[in-house]
């Protein structure tokens, strides 16, 4: 754009632009943030509504020699964390006759609840609706005048106690009481998921990716050199056929390749994920395009000195084209690491020892269908290595995209 002087309006525009970019960046990043946060959660925490991004888990302390959860209570107007003792106390729930729900006594509006042992029966009883309710004299806990009320129903409540001050007690049903929670990263999810075959899958993926990447680099460098630097009959025909093969979509080859692998006994084996994929028309083309730009004079001088072609390739061309080789390496790495269709067909979801990560991930999503924390931990294991690679070698990733569009 043509330079203009900066006015306050330009600052405003800049602000809007950055806000737009940041907003969009958040949208792009959110699924990954969600993945990471879920991968550190407990399974219960995942199902909480409304969802939270940070991983929480119930706070527990040692109480009477055992691990016991803490709950949040308001005692005398102050927020306190009380521990669940495991004891239960029978409570009476008291109210006046007019507040009793005749159809469902447990739904009645309750005026007072005290331990049933603290209430004194008057001996009288009152009929409300179809039932008879006993009358009690009840003293409110906060110390008020004793009241004469009807016992609507009895029920057990859990006893909570302040671990630092045994005098502070509270009674509630633990099921509905608000648990005290801490931010707590469940790193153990990763160990669990590795135990569900992802450890093996990770190593298999590394093996396959290494094999494919190295193989593609070798064949592409040789092929690229022959296509760019050696004149011989038939070269251009082959080159055209090679370029044409880029246009053929993989779907056409799926079934015959599968039949071929079955025929030579490679079905279900890792080798079928490596050997057929080390030949790449795209990579050969990429390397050829780069080799063409290397000046001919260097090579001719070396040839006159009696250097063999392999030596020239290794000592001159390869060092000069590290950017292109890195670009292709990144491309092959991503391609092999993320591939899914072919492993699915040739290895299958059931053959666990030979799973690669993508397959194991699908399998995990089936066996842990109700535990998104584990599934997304698996997703993180599969997704993080390429992302780390990307952060380290960003330039070559971008290069590998734009190079595919060079001759659009």
């Amino acid at each position: 754009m043509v330079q203009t002087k900066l006015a306050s309006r330009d600052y405003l525009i800049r602000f809007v632009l950055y806000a737009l970019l940041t907003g969009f960046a958040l949208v792009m990043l959110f699924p990954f943030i969600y993945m990471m946060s879920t991968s550190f959660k407990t399974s219960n925490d995942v199902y909480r509504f409304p969802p939270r991004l940070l991983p929480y888990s119930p706070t527990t302390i040692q109480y009477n020699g055992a691990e016991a959860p803490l709950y949040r209570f308001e005692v005398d107007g102050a927020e306190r964390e009380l521990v669940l003792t495991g004891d239960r106390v029978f409570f009476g729930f008291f109210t006046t006759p007019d507040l009793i729900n005749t159809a469902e006594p447990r739904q009645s509006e309750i005026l007072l609840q005290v331990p049933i042992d603290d209430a004194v029966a008057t001996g009288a009883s009152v009929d409300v609706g179809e039932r008879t309710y006993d009358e009690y004299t009840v003293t409110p806990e906060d110390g008020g005048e004793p009241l004469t009320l009807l016992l609507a129903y009895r029920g057990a409540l859990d006893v909570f106690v302040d671990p630092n001050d045994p005098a502070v007690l509270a009674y509630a049903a633990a099921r509905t009481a608000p648990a005290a929670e801490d931010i707590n990263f469940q790193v153990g999810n990763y160990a669990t998921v590795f135990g569900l075959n992802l450890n093996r899958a990770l190593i298999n993926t590394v093996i396959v990716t290494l094999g494919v990447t190295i193989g593609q680099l070798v064949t592409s460098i040789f092929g690229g050199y022959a296509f760019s630097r050696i004149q011989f009959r038939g070269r251009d025909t082959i080159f055209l056929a090679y370029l044409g093969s880029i246009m053929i979509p993989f779907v056409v080859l799926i079934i015959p390749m599968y039949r071929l692998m079955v025929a030579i006994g490679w079905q279900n084996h890792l080798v079928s994920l490596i050997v057929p994929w080390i030949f790449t028309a795209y990579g050969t083309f990429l390397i050829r395009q780069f080799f063409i730009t290397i000046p001919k004079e260097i090579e001719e001088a070396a040839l006159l000195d009696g250097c063999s072609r392999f030596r020239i390739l290794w000592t001159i061309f390869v060092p000069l084209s590290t950017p292109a080789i890195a670009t292709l390496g990144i491309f092959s790495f991503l391609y092999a690491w993320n591939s899914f269709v072919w492993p699915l067909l040739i290895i299958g979801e059931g053959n666990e020892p030979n799973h690669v990560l993508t397959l194991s991930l699908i399998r995990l999503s089936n066996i842990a269908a109700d535990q998104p924390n584990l599934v997304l931990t698996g997703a993180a294991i599969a997704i993080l290595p390429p992302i780390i690679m990307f952060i380290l070698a960003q330039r070559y990733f971008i290069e590998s995209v734009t190079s595919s569009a060079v001759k659009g």
Partner: protein
Amino acid sequence: MTARIQERPQGAAYPPALLVNIIWNIFVIGGSLLLCYTIFQVTEDFFSLGRPVQLFAGMVALLPAVLAAFATLALLQRRPAGRYAALVINYVVMVMAGFVLLHLWGVFIGLDYISGAILQNVQYTLGLALAYALYWLAGRMREDNPLRLLLERVAIAIGMLSLLLLLWFAGAVNAAFSIISTYANPVVWLVTAIMIFSGLLAYRILHLGEYFGETPQQQAAWQGWLMLSPNVIGFVLFFAGPLLLSFYLSFTNDTVGNVPEIIGLRNYGEILSLQVGSVEVDANPRTALDRDYGVLGDIVIGQTRYVLGARDPLFWQSIRNTIVFCLMLIPLSVIPAIFLSLILNSKLPGMKFYRAIYFLPSVAAVVGTALIWRWLYDPTIGYFNFIITQIVGFLNSTFGVSLTDPRILWLTDQGVVLFSLVLLAGWQVVGFNTVLFLAGLQSIPQQLYEAAYVDGANRWQQFRNVTLPMLSPTTFFVIITTVITGLQVFNEPYALIAARPMPTAATTAVYYLYNRGFFRFEFGYASSVAWVLFALIFVVTLVQFRISRSNKAYEE
């Protein structure tokens, strides 16, 4: 090669390598004939691929015999063509023997055991990681730092030691021993001998260049073919061969467990047959069609209902889904990409950072991201519905309207699920497209903007009259690649939607192919589907080819 380059006295003796090769060729011819015979006799149904493939393989097996016969004659006449033929034979025999040998050694299948062995000895891989870290650290130090050398040596020592321990405990010795023990089988000896012998022979013949009066061009030729050979072998084995096989299978009724028969165009007929019928408005649309047709859709005009039917309605449905997917994906992944790239192209600081963030999703495996999105789409705990609920609640409370929370069933509602797929795919590809547009923008010559500025064009006019037209080739390229990859969409529905069988609304063309080929094992039918799909993709590619060519003409 017919031109005699150098005259040699006819009576002179042949070099020994030549004589050996001539004798060797007789063995090659014999071996080739034997292989051909075996193909026709031993395997009856030929890997259940059918007689045509058997015939073809038999013919291919005869090729070495023909070539060897030719080579023998040409070598006797001392013609260079004989030398090349012999080279090709020996080289191919060596490579094939090498393959067979690796197979007999159990190397290919042995790859499966590596992960188990490493897993049991994980601690030593940590040693490798430590060694790498130390080495990296040493590389960061200054050259003259004495610590650098020490650190490097320690790193190498640790690395070597862990590698040795890993190899030892992971059973490298056992593996080597098991390779040696395969030599109890005489076939292994034979194959090894063939490989070494043909390799040596190829090497010797290669060095007879002077004898045959080799010109520099001829030398370049064999060097070129040699370097190209891995690619050529891969091309034949894993591209051209399968392509032919696919074409053949698409004309057969190949299924699992039976030998395929050629049934002509019947698969294609089944796939592509459409029928239009008409009935009265309130009649069952089904009755308008022949018995083996299913209803695709119908339309009422006046008092008649016109019904479109197909023999394979699910195929047409999947094609429709795929095309709708592409049509929705284009605006979703192209328009934001153009605007983002325009902003990123400004020379403000921090743009590389944003570019990197936008690019992140295209680095991640689709299977992984789809699983993330599966839970984002969850109707009860997913963030999509949560955010919609929040927005609806906000609108209701602020504006006093009474909108109902839609509670969208993203993955189970047949009307929504395709859109959910598009949203995921759009998110995944938009950053990739942004980078492409950015490259396109950066290739626009700056002078054009300067000229426009001099002419008094404002920002909008510059965008309208310079940027957009200059960006059109990139736009076109991006749209075409989006369509070509979109037409082959498979991973997204497979991983995003857990329900099986796949809901009809989310069945894409490749998923349909997968279902026919690998669930119902109708390989023949699925191959035909693949070729129909290929035809569709090819049309798109052709359009791209023609238009980009006319673009170039316009530029020149």
